[in-house]
């Protein structure tokens, strides 16, 4: 697979060569807009002290979630980090379930048992959001191994940040996936910062994932993570390879987060001007332009945006009136029998 750079844009009016199509483009835009709007609402609710604990937002990183999700089918499995709201919404989980979980209410995706960092929806293939850096790469290998062993054709997609590439589990998982040729796609969202530290300060190579691929015998894949089309094409190729028994892929997506690491962090460690430069490359801005190039009408675009805002309002209303997490669940589901008993 040839390395892509940030310059690759199709020429306008090339609809005859359009491998993506209007419907998918509208879908990609819808995913990104709804993620953006829902995440912004999450931020507001946090300021109102309705979202409790911690919350890691994906503002600015929507294209990655949208592109990879749009290329997945319902049987495919995704694993992500604690910065996982976008990946959860992108797989079709309703907004009120996500916001409800952030607000730790009974209507939440896990009824308040897991919280923001552990969003899981098995029925949507969202096989968990993981808070200990690196662990889920190894777990994703297990899901892929199962597909291979049972002769199923689903792929496992595993999202993580640039900081993950320096932890031991990353390296174990990559080596393992390669030697067993597992149908897993590793996606590094390089937003240039590992928590509060520039990734360049703490990594031995300039591109934390792409520059390590060779160490595992994998091709170097580095893409513009803010261009949903590029993400989509890359995802489709990687999934095809995996389903054909070609083994894992390691994809580094360059992106940027608009807010701090978590709600508690205003991001003051960033050099002046950097944020502004990246706001120019806001994925939604890029995509609005892309859709116009491909002749999608402003009305269609506005309709998506209006629907998104309506959905966010509805979800907010539902969540605000939802009861808190149920006390009956305190000791539920420690074990498969639904209980907690460690003794007779």
């Amino acid at each position: 697979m040839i390395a892509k750079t940030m310059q690759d844009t199709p020429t306008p009016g090339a609809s005859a060569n359009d491998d993506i199509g209007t419907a998918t483009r509208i879908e990609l835009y819808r995913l990104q807009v709804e993620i953006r709007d829902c995440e912004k609402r999450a931020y507001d609710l946090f300021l109102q002290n309705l979202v409790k604990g911690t919350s890691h937002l994906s503002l600015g990183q929507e294209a990655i979630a949208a592109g990879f999700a749009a290329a997945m089918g319902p049987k495919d499995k995704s694993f992500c980090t604690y910065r996982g709201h976008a990946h959860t919404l992108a797989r079709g989980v309703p907004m009120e379930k996500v916001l409800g979980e952030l607000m730790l209410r009974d209507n939440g995706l896990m009824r308040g048992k897991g919280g923001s960092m552990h969003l899981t929806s098995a029925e949507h293939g969202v096989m968990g959001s993981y808070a200990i850096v690196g662990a889920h790469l190894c777990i994703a290998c297990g899901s892929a191994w199962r597909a291979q062993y049972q002769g199923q054709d689903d792929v496992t997609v595993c999202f993580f940040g640039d900081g993950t590439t320096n932890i031991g589990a990353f390296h174990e998982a990559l080596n393992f996936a390669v030697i067993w040729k597992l149908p897993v796609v590793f996606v590094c969202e390089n937003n240039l910062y590992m928590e509060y530290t520039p990734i360049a300060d703490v990594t031995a190579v300039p591109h934390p994932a792409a520059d390590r691929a060779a160490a595992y015998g994998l091709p170097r894949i580095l893409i513009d993570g803010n261009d949903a089309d590029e993400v989509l094409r890359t995802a489709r190729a990687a999934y095809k390879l995996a389903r054909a028994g070609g083994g894992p892929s390691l994809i580094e997506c360059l992106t940027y987060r608009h807010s701090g690491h978590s709600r508690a962090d205003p991001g003051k460690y960033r050099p002046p001007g950097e944020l502004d430069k990246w706001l120019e490359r806001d994925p939604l801005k890029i995509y609005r332009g892309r859709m116009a190039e491909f002749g999608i009408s402003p009305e269609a675009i506005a309709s998506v945006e209006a629907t998104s805002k309506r959905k966010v309002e509805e979800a907010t209303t539902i969540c605000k009136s939802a009861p808190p997490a149920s006390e009956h669940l305190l000791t539920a589901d420690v074990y498969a029998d639904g209980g907690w008993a460690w003794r007779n």
Partner: protein
Amino acid sequence: MSATIIMPQLGETVAEGKIIAWFKSVGDKVAVGDRLFEVETDKVTVEVEATEGGTLSEIRIGKDVTTKVGTVVAVLDGGVGQAAAPAAASVAPAPAAAARSAPKALSAFEEVATAKGRFGKANAGNDVRVSPLARRLIAENGLDTETVAQAAIKENVRRIDRRAIALHMQQARSSALTVLEPVQATSGTGGEVVTLNTIRRRTGERLAENWRTIPHVFQAIEADFTAVEAARCEIRARFKAEQGISLTYLPFIARATCLALDAFPQVNAHFDGKALSLSRDVHLGIAVDLNHSGLVVPVIRGAGDFTTLGLAKAIARMVEKARSGKLSADDLSGGTYSISNNGAFGTLFTAPIINAPQVAILSVDAIRKRPAVVETAEGDFIAPRLMGMLGQSFDHRAFDGAYSAAFLSKLKSIIETRNWAEDLTSGRTR
């Protein structure tokens, strides 16, 4: 807080019982030890006593009803009420801990069911400590900590535990049991009517049945205890000092019996009227007299694996438990052979009654110096020798006189010729 009264387990093969009489009615106050009801089983009739105090609030199984062992027959409302006085000693005992077979439901915040109850002092005077179990037993049996402590101190013991309480209660009982209550003279003989106590009544019925159903044959053999005595004298002072136990002839006889039973397995068996079930292990019953007010036969399980001194300790322990009324159903069951020690009053021999389903029982009578013929190279002489008669009653359905006699002969041979000095010091069990 209420406690349940259940149909108790009355014997190894008993599965159900019929209540033939209730001694209490609903609303009656019940104290520990009170007779509650009488149960008839296929083996025996037994009176069941209360193990907790309270008020009988409900009778679920009435007279003439047969029900399975373990069924709840009545309910007792516990607690006699707190005494007003602040002194810890006057707090009434709370009902005993819930039965192990019915665990309480646990909650996440009470994952362990803390034991209920507040019992007496943990420290008596003079540095005497009281174990938690002992504190509960003191309270449940209406004893006084200080009195028990005095008894312990006399034995130079600074800890009141279950053993100390058993000893104390045995002593208390000895003084109580020898008093037989005289009743109005209404008998035909013109003398006193002595009512049998419960134990005697119970065992009497069993003895009668055994006598009726088993064809008893009695055989006796005389054994020379000189070698045993020599070894015994060597060690008894030290044994007494170290263990607080007097070393009698009984452990030696028990040991010899186990060895003899190895060679004559049909004597160590159960008989059900049709088949003889040989037992691989010897579970030896030792008849214990309860100060002339009854007889119990507690069992030493696996007695064949004990050394002679081990048997001495085990016998002493059983006797102590028997005399303090602390024998459990387990202690009284499963015996494969029994020994009845009747020598204390100088009898020559005794023909004991067999303990069904065992097939034989040994009586040991007085061991004393008697004139005996001693054969030497120079001729026959009369000399005093320490002699004792060993008498065995056996079930003639199980085996014949020749087999029984051979067993007795083996037993005699072991007693007379075993190297007892070596036996006591070797620590081996064969």
